[in-house]
């Protein structure tokens, strides 16, 4: 089959010493970033992007590094969930529900191992899903004209508030802010400056990197400073006894059903634009609980309660890559950040990615398989290493994060103005988090605003001003319909599930993945 041939080529690309080393570093860093509460996959990837640029890495190695970080974070999040009852990142929230009770019962090592295996299974099958599903979407590429691209971007924005969004007005506002930021600069089509206020620094537009690092990393530091000493900060006793680290075979067999179902659900959740790894783990846990009914004892340390969400979130991470690579529509917050990186490397994800840059895509997918195996090896025997790292106090960690953000940006631009702009974004990010305004649409707006407007204007130039071209083709109509449905759906869904309460427990603030 075609896909398998491409995959074989991809392995040839991925199996160089440099790429393997980068995959390893990415997996290690990702696990660390995921494990440490306060740093999540989106922040972690965001901080590393300027570093990656300054190192002058090419597209494939950079993508391998950052996606390994992404996958690694899905593994790492469970460590502090199980040991500290604090989710390392939002997708790991569900793992606390059964993971911590297991740890209190002295079965921490088994919990860590089962979740590690579940993560592996989830990611493994999701990556196969990526191999087969993405090229199918690409075959649709020839049907894409500017009107279809515009409809697709509208879909991306409409759904990126997320299925779990509680307030669509805020999501719409976030998207509007992001797009407005994208307007700043010299207009591509006509050459006139827009919203620059005569300031030369703005003629080139606002660099999305500055927005991303400021809004994700710096605002995190500000939030941390604010929450220090608050009542709900981490007064649970950390579990230090690990017990057995390799799980008994019977437990693996017992949880295999949960892993399988979690994987399927997670993958589907990940593929949907706007829904990411958090939804994947949430769906997997809740539906597994319903499936088992009386047979399970979820909430009291049932290993299936650990296996299902972990398989779910890893599968969703893999699934989220499908729309990002095949359509250029991010499937989650972190893939939005990855999209940022691809765009700045001059690689446009979307239907033509597989034709124009097959080496990048297939090299990446091959590296994901390799990375997955590395992560399994890192996480099962070496989990003790990571637990020791968890003891680093946050008052050392957060300043380091802040400083790395600064030098990352400064190394790229050598401009104090850009640093000030980044600080401004940090404050903006803090305010937005306070008001529960999702940040991902803002980032997406800054990233895709230019493309979206360009396609709109191109479409209208082709039709000579006739607006009907925007809903002329069935594909465009399809996208726009799903966009409307996706925008309206959360308003109905919020009546059935109380997402607000769940999010409040997870220190979620719009940086969701």
């Amino acid at each position, binding site marked *: 089959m075609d896909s398998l041939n491409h995959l074989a080529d991809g392995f040839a690309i991925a199996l160089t010493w440099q790429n393997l080393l980068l995959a390893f570093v990415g997996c290690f860093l990702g696990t660390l970033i995921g494990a440490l509460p306060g740093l999540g996959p989106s922040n972690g990837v965001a901080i590393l992007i300027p*570093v990656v640029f*300054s*190192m002058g890495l090419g597209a494939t190695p950079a993508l391998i590094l950052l996606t390994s970080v992404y996958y690694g974070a899905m593994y790492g999040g469970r460590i502090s969930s199980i040991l500290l009852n604090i989710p390392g990142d939002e997708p790991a929230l569900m793992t606390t529900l059964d993971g911590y009770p297991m740890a209190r019962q002295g079965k921490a090592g088994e919990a860590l191992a089962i979740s590690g295996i579940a993560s592996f299974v989830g990611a493994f099958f999701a990556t196969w899903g990526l191999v087969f599903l993405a090229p199918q979407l690409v075959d649709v590429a020839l049907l894409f004209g500017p009107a279809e691209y515009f409809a697709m971007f509208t879909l991306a924005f409409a759904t990126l508030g997320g299925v779990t969004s*509680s*307030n669509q*007005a*805020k999501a*719409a*506002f976030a*998207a*509007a*802010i992001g*797009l*407005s930021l994208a*307007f700043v600069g010299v*207009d591509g*089509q*006509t*050459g*006139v*400056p*827009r*919203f620059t206020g005569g300031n030369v620094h703005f003629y080139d537009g606002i660099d999305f990197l500055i927005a991303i690092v400021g809004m994700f990393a*710096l605002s995190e*530091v*500000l939030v*941390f*400073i*604010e929450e*220090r*000493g608050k009542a709900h900060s981490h007064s649970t006793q950390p579990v230090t006894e690990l017990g057995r680290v390799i799980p008994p075979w019977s437990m693996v067999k017992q949880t295999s059903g949960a892993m399988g179902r979690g994987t399927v659900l997670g993958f589907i959740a990940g593929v949907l634009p706007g829904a990411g790894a958090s939804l994947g783990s949430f769906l997997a846990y809740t539906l597994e609980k319903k499936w088992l009914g009386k047979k399970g004892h979820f909430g009291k340390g049932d290993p299936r309660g650990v296996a299902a969400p972990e398989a779910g979130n890893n599968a969703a991470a893999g699934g989220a890559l499908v729309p990002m690579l095949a359509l250029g529509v991010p499937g989650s917050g972190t893939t939005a950040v990855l999209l940022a990186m691809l765009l700045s490397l001059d690689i446009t994800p979307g239907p033509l990615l597989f034709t124009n840059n097959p080496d990048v895509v297939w090299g990446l997918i091959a590296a994901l398989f390799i990375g997955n195996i590395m992560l399994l090896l890192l996480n099962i025997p070496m989990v003790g290493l990571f637990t020791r790292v968890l003891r680093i*106090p*946050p*008052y*050392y960690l*957060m*300043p*380091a994060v*802040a*400083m*790395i953000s*600064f*030098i990352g940006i*400064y*190394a790229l631009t*050598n401009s*104090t103005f850009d*640093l*000030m702009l980044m*600080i401004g974004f*940090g*404050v903006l990010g*803090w305010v937005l988090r306070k*008001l*529960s305004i999702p940040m991902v649409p803002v980032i997406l707006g800054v990233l895709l605003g230019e493309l979206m407007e360009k396609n*709109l*204007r191109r479409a*209208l*130039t082709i039709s*000579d001003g006739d607006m009907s071209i925007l809903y002329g083709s069935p594909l465009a109509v399809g996208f726009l319909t799903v966009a409307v449905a996706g925008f309206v759906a959360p308003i109905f869904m919020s009546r059935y599930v109380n997402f607000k309460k769940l999010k409040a427990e997870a220190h979620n603030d719009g940086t969701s993945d």
Partner: protein
Amino acid sequence: MSDRIFGGIVLTVSLLMMWATTLIEESFIQDPLGPKAFPLVIAGVMAVSAVVMFFKPDSEPEWPGLHKLLELVATVGVFIAYAQILPIAGFVVATIFATAFLVWRLGGAPRQSIVGGITIAVGIYLVFHFMLGLNLAKGPWGF
């Protein structure tokens, strides 16, 4: 209440944006939509969402008390000072002070702050400058 205030602010911003859009010059290269149309649409979306936020506010977030607020302002002040001083004093020196301050405010004892500040600053310098080859600010002493 916060949402209402914010809604009001956003409404003002969107009106300002619409005004700023009218300032955009027309160029002789013109496409049917023009440089003004899409910004106006987006400003409109912003205005609508502001009105919705105004009429359907969410529950009130927890704003920090005066003490915390001052801390946050001080932190932002340190960030700004850091950004200004970086090209003048060089990376290592500026980072030591900024990091020490942050560690101190985040809960470290004064001794821990200084030690932490130096370790982190020097550590970052070694990893990023020597190992990864990044271009860090050069101060009067060469680092």
